[in-house]
């Protein structure tokens, strides 16, 4: 399925990057404010779905660069990888680990296994929905 509306094309081109940026924003701030991997993934998915409606599934596959299924498995692997530090430290599975990297100007970059886990959720959600949508669209064509 592919529409030929000029307005949708133009709008999609402009809105999509904004949506993707917003989804990253949601993902990263999720630990303190509303957001997180699940919502971020959904927003990213809706961005790609919008693009897919405007330009079709082939173009969406090209812009995604990876197969949605790979995205899905990458998400699962990320989520599993976040358990490794706890495993190495001999703690119960999924115990969070935090690292603070000093940045110039008295600030810290807070990194954690929780973030890795959240990225995994993000990718898994995005991968799942894109698997649904792209394959449904392709079966259409």
């Amino acid at each position: 399925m592919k529409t030929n509306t000029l307005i949708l094309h133009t709008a999609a081109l402009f809105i999509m990057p904004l949506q993707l940026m917003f989804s990253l924003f949601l993902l990263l701030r999720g630990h303190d404010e509303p957001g997180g991997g699940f919502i971020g993934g959904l927003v990213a998915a809706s961005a790609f779905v919008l693009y897919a409606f405007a330009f079709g599934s082939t173009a969406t596959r090209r812009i995604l660069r990876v197969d949605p299924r790979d995205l899905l498995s990458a998400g699962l692997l990320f989520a599993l990888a976040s358990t490794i530090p706890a495993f190495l430290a001999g703690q119960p599975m999924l115990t969070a680990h935090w690292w603070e990297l000093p940045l110039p100007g008295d600030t810290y970059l807070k990194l954690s296994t929780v973030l890795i886990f959240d990225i995994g959720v993000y990718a898994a959600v995005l991968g799942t929905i894109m698997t649904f949508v792209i394959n449904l669209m392709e079966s259409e064509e």
Partner: protein
Amino acid sequence: MLLAVLSGFLLAIAVPALHRMTGKYIGWALALLPASLTVYFASLIPAVQTDGSLLIEYAWLPGLDITLNFLVDGLSLVFALLISSIGTFILIYSGSYLAGHKYLARFFVLMLSFMASMFGLVLSDNLVTLFVFWELTSITSYLLIGFNHEDIETRKSALQGLFVTVAGGLALMAGLILLAIMSGSYSLSEILSSNMALHEHAFYTAAVICILAGTFTKSAQVPFHFWLPNAMAAPTPVSAFLHSATMVKAGIYLMARLNPSLGEGELWSQTLVLFGAATMLTGAYLAFSNTGIKKVLAYSTIMALGTLTMLIGVGTELALTAFICFLVAHSLYKGALFMIAGALDHQTGTKDITVMGGLRKAMPVTAVIACLAALSQAGLPPLFGFIAKELLFESLLESPIWSVGLTIAAVLAAMLLVGVAGLVAVKPFFGKSGNTPKTPHEAPFGMLIGPAVLSVTALTFGLVPFLPEAALLQAAVASVNGAAVETNLALWHGVNKPLMLSVISLLLGWGLLASWNRLQSRLHAINTSAARFGPEAGYFKFMEGITIIAAWQTRVLQNGVLGLYLLILVAVTFGLTGYTLLTQHGINLTLDLADSHFYEWGIALLLVAAATFSSTTHSRLGSVASMGVLGFGVALTFILFSAPDLGITQLLVETLTVILLVLVLFKLPEFGNLSSPFERYRDLAVAIFAGMVMTLVILAALDVQYFESISSYYIENSATLAYGRNIVNVILVDFRALDTLGEIFVLSLAALGVLSMIKLKAEDQHKP
């Protein structure tokens, strides 16, 4: 210790690579593992001699009090040594028995996994880990019995074994849980060392019945004995290892293990003695009346298992000594005899004893080893089997219950067993030459070393019984008994009652053997007519019944009409909920609407309108859109009541759902009315009923608080423990991250399911 137990699994992973490297010497290469394990376990003997038992601990799931502790005492060490030492020879033997088999690597993978499971089973200190390993032995043995999976009979036998042992395994799990509740601990060592009188506990009877159901099925006691001979469909090394030396003894091990705790009750001893004696006689009779060499051995294994069970039941110190000796003696000679049977089968091309004869000329070494092992089985001096048999008679003569009956039964069984030993060692090797399908040759070295070493060991143990006794057997008897025991093994006791019984059984057995040819046809006739009413017939009836019930319930419940599934689901769930609500709680219709706002009423009306429209409209798109409206309304409610995370998620999911539905919509056929008015009104009634119950439940939930809300914990700790201020997200990725992990796996499975559905459909359509 952890490494020792798990090394089998680890090596199993490397088997395919090793197979490529070592080629036909794979059996010898892999045998290095059990051989070194034998040395390792033997090195633990001194510690067990001085301390009685060792507890080696590893934390596994500390939160659930599940540990990977290993309990090393006399009993577990005897078993571990039997498994590792016999396993060594079995692996060497398998290498030549299955040489050139296309699935050789797979065979060794299974065999090593089985061995590792067996180690875990006999060494585990925790009941839960013990059960896990117990089930692992069932599963690996299922795969091993069904190794020649292209044969339908083999598959059937494998399934039978699995079905019987796993059904028992489920009962065992219940029994072990009951045992843990009774004793307050999942740790075997704690249960064994506590002085609680478990047999006075209210759960005692239930626990004993459940545990015995598990051990009886596993160790093939009457009436569950039928699966064991069928399991002989497995390759012979498997039969030798699993069904004589190890797996079937897992049940025996567990009974012996729990004997100090559970053995004080009447129920325990009487059940064990009764079933054990019945199994002993049945096994001995069936062994004598069969003609296939593997079946003969399998049934005589059943006889041995029955004897062992009976001895635990008798439970005197003497009986337990006899138990340990019989256990060791049986493993030695039966392992050897099975490997001989395999060699005969391999070299002559038949399993039928009636066509074998005079093989001693072609296979002299095999003949000598077979005779040695068979002498031990028949219980002749100076082999270890003799000592075990003398002890058996002696302990039964002094048995506190049913002494005379048990002694007579044991003499009968021993007599039949002498006949069986003759069938295995005399018939094939002596007498006039038979007419076998293959011209027999001496078996290769790899197939002879195992039986040779085992039967020579039986001879050594018989000649110098104090060696194994001092090393380990005494400690083993002590752990079965629960207290130290003075044992006194000797080859010569003087002329006494046991010796005379022994002589009687020998003479009668020899007579039976001489008339075997004449008896055979009559025994065969009796067996075939008895089989129609036997437990195996019952098993098949039961399986047929299951199929019939399954077909019936599929027809009624799973008829493929989605609407019906939904109807039943909703009606049952809300019916039960409503019933509970009415009877347990009472309905509370007071509702304070004073501080509600007008926009909340607006949203509520919108929701009702959207739901009504979506269920009455004839336009699919309209229905989907109004469902979307419904979802947005719910999201709006979430946002109003300050749950922004939920609100956003709901909005996004709702949007994407509408999009997905629209995508699917184009594929559906024209709208049509498929249901009759009656069905629609019925559905309407059910829907209204469900809605009502749900509303009442929510109203009831408002004024009930059974537990303190958990949210205060999260509010207090999310910032300090998880460094996050957004509680919802902290719960998702930190406190309950395991749930989320599970959910994204479910999500992926759903994606794969949809994918395969779409792809398969597409392929279907492209078919010419």
